[in-house]
């Protein structure tokens, strides 16, 4: 029975001054709306920047580097086993840049449960021939399916169909800046000179934009087969293995492990992009700082409005207490009012926050760096909505609790005599 009574008293108090109640609810709504929309926007931008690197970069890259042999012949000599030796001008030994036994290595890595996927790659140094002029270039021979699945290759191909690379033999996708320099478009033929001096014609089936102009001028993509043919190598010739993991944080340890296991060089994403890692963590820190600030500001706003509302109802509190309502009942009435305002204001805030996010999501955003991005990025992470919802309830609860606690404790006569 008591609950019903409290609800009815709360309702009457709320509706009697419905404008004031509305203002309080709007205060909550506004705070939560700002929190959701700003955090969604910031998180969207953050994710975009993260993806800029993370989507394109393998978590672990296996390759062979041309290095001088660690053990020189003198080390093997028994005559000098107790001596120090100094060898000057050590030169690297002649070694093919390919990964030994690549098929077996790929299969064994694919078996590993921690690995999301492997994309093999062949790189070839070439010259692009434009009339009499030769431009240096680098062709990446890629496994188109794996590359697209793991590194979203299709997002960077701005003209032509990237699948043609697989379907049309002797085809190539040029960087947009490089293609402009060579004055070719999709559908044209170009000639490249391979390291052995042979000229090979290739068909341009598309153009890509990586966002880095200098890279686009030099690099281009072809299928692994085309690349191997260009180099005159067999189908087992793979120079790089790009590995993507389920959990990026395992990369440094696994790079070490693979390096020893497969006897290759291995580099992890954290080591390869140390500066990016720092930037990423600082951006996260900033968005947390902004989020917390927003919540505190919104919280104080909510607290102020409810506080005032309760002080204006002091008379009613005195009457209720004089006629037999206990402090606890008064407390419950105001907490019920505060929570009602919190729930409705908060729900509206979440909805408006979603609306504003959706609106930001529609604002055009053109950037050369990301050809597939057309509007401002927004994150619809449910985490923000959960935090916003819980926060609106918690702040309104405390905003109702403290003043009503104070009101419930004083003797009614103090309010009455004060009149």
């Amino acid at each position, binding site marked *: *029975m*008591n609950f019903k*009574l409290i609800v009815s*008293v709360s309702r*009457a*108090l709320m*509706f*009697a001054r419905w404008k004031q109640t509305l203002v309080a609810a709007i205060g909550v709504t506004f705070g939560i709306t700002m929190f959701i929309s700003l955090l969604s926007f910031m998180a969207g931008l953050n994710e975009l920047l993260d993806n800029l690197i993370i989507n394109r970069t393998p978590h672990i890259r296996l390759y062979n580097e041309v290095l001088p042999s660690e053990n020189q012949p003198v080390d093997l000599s028994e005559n000098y086993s107790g001596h120090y030796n100094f060898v000057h001008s050590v030169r690297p030994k002649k070694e093919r840049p390919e990964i030994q036994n690549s098929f077996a290595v790929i299969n064994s890595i694919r078996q590993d449960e921690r690995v999301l996927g492997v994309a093999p790659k062949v790189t070839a140094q070439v010259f692009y021939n434009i009339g009499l002029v030769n431009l240096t270039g680098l062709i990446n021979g890629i496994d188109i399916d794996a590359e697209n699945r793991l590194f979203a290759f299709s997002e960077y191909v701005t003209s032509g169909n990237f699948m043609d690379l697989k379907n049309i033999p002797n085809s190539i996708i040029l960087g947009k800046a490089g293609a402009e320099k060579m004055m070719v478009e999709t559908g044209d033929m170009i000639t490249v000179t391979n390291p052995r001096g042979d000229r090979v014609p290739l068909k341009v089936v598309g153009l890509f934009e990586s966002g880095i102009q200098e890279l686009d001028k030099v690099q281009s993509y072809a299928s692994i087969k085309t690349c191997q043919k260009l180099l005159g190598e067999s189908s087992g010739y793979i120079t790089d293995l790009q590995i993507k993991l389920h959990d990026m944080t395992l990369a440094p340890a696994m790079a070490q492990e693979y390096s020893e296991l497969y006897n290759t060089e291995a580099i992890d994403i954290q080591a390869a992009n140390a500066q990016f890692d720092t930037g990423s963590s600082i951006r996260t820190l900033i968005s947390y700082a902004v989020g917390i600030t927003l919540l505190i500001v919104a919280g104080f706003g909510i607290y102020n409005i409810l506080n005032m509302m309760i002080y204006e109802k002091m*008379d*009613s509190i*005195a*009457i*209720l*207490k*004089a*006629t*037999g*309502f*206990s*402090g*606890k*009942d008064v407390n419950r009435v105001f907490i019920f009012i505060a929570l009602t305002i919190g729930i409705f204001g908060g729900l509206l805030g979440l909805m408006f926050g979603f609306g504003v996010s959706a609106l930001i999501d529609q604002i055009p955003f053109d950037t050369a760096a990301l050809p597939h991005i057309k509007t401002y990025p927004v994150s619809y992470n449910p985490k923000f909505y959960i935090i916003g919802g819980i926060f609106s309830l918690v702040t309104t609860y405390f905003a109702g609790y403290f003043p009503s606690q104070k009101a419930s*404790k004083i*003797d*009614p*006569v103090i309010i*009455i*005599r004060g*009149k």
Partner: protein
Amino acid sequence: MKILEAKNITKYFHDPITIQVLKEVSFSIEQGEFVSIIGKSGCGKSTLLYILSTMDTDYEGELYIDNVLMRQKKEADLALVRNEKIGFVFQFHYLLNEFSVLRNVMLPGIKLGKYSEKEIEHRAMEKLKILGIDGEALKKPNQLSGGQKQRVAIARALINDPLIIMADEPTGNLDKKNSEIVFTIFKELSEVYNQSLLIVTHDGEFAKATNRIIEMEDGKIIRM
């Protein structure tokens, strides 16, 4: 049978300086008595009434209501005592404008929860009828005249059939005609329903018509 007994009630105000407003006040009220407390402004009669009604807990001495000591009671228990055993009428009507007249009268009854809501509504209508304002039951208090409001306040005080009704200058804010109506009602409650009443007033004529007058001066009872 004693329904209310005060023993050596002493009270100080501390702000701005410490003053003793009540000096060891002792008296008791029997069931069915119609008592008035009179005295000049500032003699402590309202202060005493607030203590007797348990709304003020900052005092020394002992207060028994229905032979139960109030001193050790917790805030929630005191609220229950006020709800069940005391009906209070203020100088200013103190009704909740957010509720209808009928609802105002019903609220203490719903709070007590002794009867179903339907029954409380019926009882509330009866009380309003006794006071002659049953026609205004569905209006909001701010639509009524001062005299009508005071009668609603009395109806509210009656809803739980209290042991005693306490009133603080119930006619202080009313004109002569309305004062008389209110007084007649109190008289009728006392005579017809054998209701115990304790009225603080500075209206000498009003006091004269009661069974017993307690006169106060400087925080002490000088006549009773």
